[in-house]
């Protein structure tokens, strides 16, 4: 397998109407598989959320990470994703989430640390154009002078790699801390959270609406790597809906690490 470059691929953009948390989990699974099988060209997907959610990492303990009663009280669905990494607190409009589904050839020979930074280099450039001096903080964070902006996670599967990222646009920190159990050992990471009412590095540092930030990010990706507008195929959507209902919506998957 030869190392490939971004421009060796015909990048597709998927940015649809808001979808449910379990469908997002399933779409990452299906689209990674489709790119790995060569049935779909490498793709950038921007997520829109139809409902609030806590998304825990593949290996996080459900009971250690989430206050189930608080989540229920706030009407927040808890789902588990396919990748490792930490919990995300999502309310529609409070974050910017995207997935990149790429052939593994794109990061062939790179260390994990290099591969994480490689996949988000275009984002750092977009943030720079928006006036935010941001940089990669290993292992898997994008940070800025105004604090942590984003966390990334990767999964490798059948010739493809999924790299997905959630960026904090404007998060209600009090509600987040009510729902997520962030322990002492972890707080060193999120130290800015406890002092702030909102975690809003993207909103406060750009002064732009979320939609405008997304538009600028997509434009940067398009300019650097090329990007055609695409949509989910009927078959991809049907597969994802079945997986959302079966696997990702099941109590067994959610509590797989109790």
């Amino acid at each position, binding site marked *: 397998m030869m190392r490939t470059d971004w421009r060796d691929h015909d990048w597709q953009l998927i940015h649809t109407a808001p979808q449910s948390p379990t469908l997002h989990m399933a779409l990452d699974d299906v689209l990674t598989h489709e790119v790995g099988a060569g049935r779909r060209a490498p793709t950038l997907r921007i997520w829109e959320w139809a409902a609030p959610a806590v998304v825990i990492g*593949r*290996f996080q303990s459900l009971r250690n990470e989430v206050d189930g009663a608080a989540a229920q009280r706030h009407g927040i669905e808890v789902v588990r994703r396919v990748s490792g990494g930490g919990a995300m607190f999502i309310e529609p409009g409070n974050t910017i989430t995207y997935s990149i589904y790429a052939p593994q050839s794109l990061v062939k020979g790179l260390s994990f640390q290099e591969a994480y930074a490689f996949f988000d280099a275009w984002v750092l450039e977009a943030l720079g154009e928006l006036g935010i001096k941001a940089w990669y903080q290993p292992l898997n964070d994008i940070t800025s002078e105004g604090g942590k902006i984003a966390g990334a996670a990767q999964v*490798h599967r059948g010739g493809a790699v999924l790299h997905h990222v959630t960026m904090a646009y404007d998060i209600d920190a009090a509600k987040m801390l009510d729902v997520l159990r962030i322990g002492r050992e972890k707080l060193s990471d999120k130290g800015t959270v406890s002092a702030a009412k909102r975690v809003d590095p993207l909103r406060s540092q750009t002064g732009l609406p979320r939609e405008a930030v997304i538009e600028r990010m997509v434009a940067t990706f398009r300019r650097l790597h090329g990007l055609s507008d695409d949509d989910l195929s009927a078959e991809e959507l049907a597969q994802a809906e079945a997986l959302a209902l079966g696997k990702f919506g099941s109590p067994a998957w959610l509590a797989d690490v109790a």
Partner: protein
Amino acid sequence: MHGEYKMPGGKLVVVDLEVRDGRFADVQLSGDFFLEPDSALEAINRALEGQSEHADEAALAASVRDALATDVMMYGISPEAIAVAVRRALHKEPAA
């Protein structure tokens, strides 16, 4: 019993376990690390299950390493970090 260890330069490694008749039982590794394939999590839990509560960190780390197939990828976690989290669970050491 519950132990947490933030691996330097890595991620949070958490171990929950019981001790029955001097041996580990109901071992559950968790955290915000990266591990592939994901079935390696169960392999690690099984490797620790039944170990003596007196096993030292080097022995625990070796047991974990021996249980992992050569194609397992770890990022932000290591056999040594898992062993530290186990010892912390046993000693109820305060989180660093």
